[in-house]
């Protein structure tokens, strides 16, 4: 009898047993809380059944997909997702370029250049993104009215309805989508090929040579891509053509514009604001990473006769990239989430469209979970891509 009490006493003093008890009690509380939430949620409609019904609202900006108000809510949501993805890809690329240039500029010996970078960061980083979006919208709306639109020989039309640029459009022979498909396959194939050749060179040291000229995997990939693209372009009899924007008056005297790539004030405002705002944070990341490198790197590069530009692109930036990428990923995720702020100027991306659906249907909770899942998967994709990049960057020279 005594021994059991002793054993229990020993057990109760052991760390493992205590940890188990603590976790058990914790889980009971969490479980009760979750049970409470779920029981409340079950009182609401948490199915997405209403998503198959007719959307009934128009979307002013569509890209690639042809949406009309007679389509289902799923399709409306999908249109929003496409708009978000488009915004994120363009925004991420531009913000990275801007941030890198400004980050290098901040450390430049040229006082004018570094002053611009300093002013840019200190002014734009410390004002809310929302204000910047509204600011750019006001600026874009102050462009001349469409009756006084600025045109450059029928290639660019600038007015406060948007900026029209020349763009490619599919011709009537109907091979446009086929050609896009071929291009996508060509991109994937040439990526794999160049990857394989580079790896073969890395591991086995085998090099493909053409008359003493080394062909690296990247060059071969590019050549193959352009060959496939151009050959299929001619075989399919010009599936795409250049589409010039035009501005004309109809018989009532109303000005109309058509054709080309339309860069609307809303898209421009949100893109400008996102790029400028995220660019400030990227600037600081780039600056910090460059400053964290030992000064000897620059001195050594200059000592072997590299120019300032070569020092930066060949020595400093590749090394700084290792400490840049993890915080950069964070900024990309922020940009993706911040794109939801375009709701303030009614640019119909994912969040704006879901808000309309919430208002129309009255079922907010399931739509919110859909938003959550979509943003989480977008974040996941960005993280995975950046992790692959990070692994490649840290591998070099390691």
């Amino acid at each position, binding site marked *: 009898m005594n021994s059991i009490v002793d054993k229990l006493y020993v057990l109760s003093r052991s760390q493992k047993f205590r940890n188990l008890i603590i976790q058990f009690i914790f889980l009971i509380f969490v479980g009760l809380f979750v049970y409470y939430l779920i029981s*409340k949620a079950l009182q609401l409609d948490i199915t997405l059944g209403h998503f198959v019904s007719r959307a009934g609202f128009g979307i002013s900006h569509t890209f690639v997909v042809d949406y009309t108000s007679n389509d289902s809510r799923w399709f409306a949501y999908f249109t929003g997702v496409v708009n978000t993805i488009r915004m994120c890809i363009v925004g991420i690329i531009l913000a990275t370029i801007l941030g890198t240039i400004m980050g290098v500029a901040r450390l430049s010996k*040229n006082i*004018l250049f570094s002053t611009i970078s300093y002013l840019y960061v200190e002014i734009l980083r410390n004002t*809310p993104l929302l204000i910047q979006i509204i600011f750019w919208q006001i600026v874009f709306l102050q462009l001349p009215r469409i009756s006084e639109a600025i045109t450059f020989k029928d290639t660019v039309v600038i007015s406060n309805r948007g900026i029209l640029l020349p763009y490619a459009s599919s011709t009537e022979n109907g091979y446009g989508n086929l050609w896009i498909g071929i291009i996508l396959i060509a991109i994937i194939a040439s990526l794999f090929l160049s990857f394989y050749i580079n790896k073969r060179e890395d591991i086995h040291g085998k090099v493909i040579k053409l008359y003493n000229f080394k062909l690296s995997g990247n060059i071969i990939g590019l050549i193959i891509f352009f060959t496939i693209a151009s050959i299929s372009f001619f075989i399919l009899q010009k599936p795409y053509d250049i589409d010039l924007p035009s501005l004309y008056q109809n018989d009532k005297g109303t000005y109309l514009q058509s054709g080309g790539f339309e860069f609307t004030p809303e898209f421009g405002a949100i893109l400008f604001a996102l790029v400028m705002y995220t660019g400030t944070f990227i600037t600081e990341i780039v600056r910090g990473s460059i400053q964290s490198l030992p000064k000897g790197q620059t001195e050594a590069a200059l000592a072997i006769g590299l120019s300032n530009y070569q020092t930066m692109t060949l020595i400093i930036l590749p090394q700084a990239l290792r400490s840049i990428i993890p915080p950069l990923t964070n900024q990309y995720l922020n940009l993706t989430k911040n794109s939801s702020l375009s709701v303030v100027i009614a640019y119909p991306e994912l969040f704006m469209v879901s808000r309309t659906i919430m208002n129309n249907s009255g079922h907010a909770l399931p739509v*919110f979970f859909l938003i959550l899942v979509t943003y989480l998967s977008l974040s996941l994709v960005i993280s995975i891509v950046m992790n692959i990049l990070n692994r490649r960057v840290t591998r070099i020279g390691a």
Partner: protein
Amino acid sequence: MQNFYKWGFETFFGSVFNTIITLLSLIILFFFINSILGFISTSEWKVVEVNRRLLLIGRMPPEHEYRVWPILWVASYLIMASIKTWGSPSYRDLLFIALGITIVCVIFTTSSTYLWVLTSLLICIFSYVITSFIGKSTTANNKNKKILILLWILLLPIIFTILLIGDGPKPTLWGGFLLNIILACIAIGFGFPLGILFAIGRASTLPAIKIVCTIYIETIRGAPLVAWLLLAWFVLPKFLPQFWGINEVSVVVRAMIILSAFTSAYTAEVIRGGLQSIPKGQIEAADSLNLGYANKMVLIVLPQAIRVVIPALISTFIGVFKDTSLVFILALTDLLQVGRIIPEQDPEFFGRQLEALCVVAFLFWIISISLSNLSKKVEKSLGIGIR
């Protein structure tokens, strides 16, 4: 003089690339200055002048306006005393602070309120002088520090007492700059302690606690703040318990709940970085001293972890302050909403959105830049401490 020319030539036109950069920079600066000058020459600030009260307190009834000034007095005493006690400001800092305060006062002072503002300016100077007087003796200084910390903790209750005591206006009527500051204070005041708890939870060795905290943090960070605010707008009341009328909470309280939860998740991630930077030896040393878990955390781990991440924490707080402008989604009239609405109210102000927006942006900017300078200062002083 010859050296100066040589230096100038080499910095601006040292190489072809450099020359191109100089010319480009000149063009950009020219456009920047030109557009600013153009804006200043055509701007009319009357839209801001007649709407000062709206910018400061939004739709709060004018008869309750007097409640704002005691808050300003307490805040100005606390801020100036803290700057003197912990900041050890240089003359440049003081000049910057004085300039900022003056401009903010110019924006908000009308003929009927200048006495109140003057009083708070006097309190600023008084608190600075008296704190520097106290600072001469070490014991009095230490006592003063304790009092200040206590006051900072009590600041939120004080603000709420002043705003709600007697027949105070309903929270839904709060607005303008006051609302932004209250929301930011609440979000940081509740979000920071919660964030510490979640960070400890996520760094815990117990799998159940770790997983639950991780799920919480990642879910909150997964969706943008506007989406969470929209959720609060639609369904939060249905999830709150149905006694004491909690489920009919006003929109402001919903915004506070969401902002605090959001801040806690982001703060937790920052503090987790600090926890990871603690050398293992510290924890082992604490264990070998037979400190309990709570003692180990409060006395050994957290002070070091938070110290390391103070700059990152401050930038998170700046982010939270800027994010308070998102409450437009709950139909609250915060500073930015007031700034958007006032040019539309009167045909006289048509097309004066930029002026209103500029003032709003400046008010956000001046607070953020002060905090960001504070963080730079802390970063510097921390660097000295480590080496």
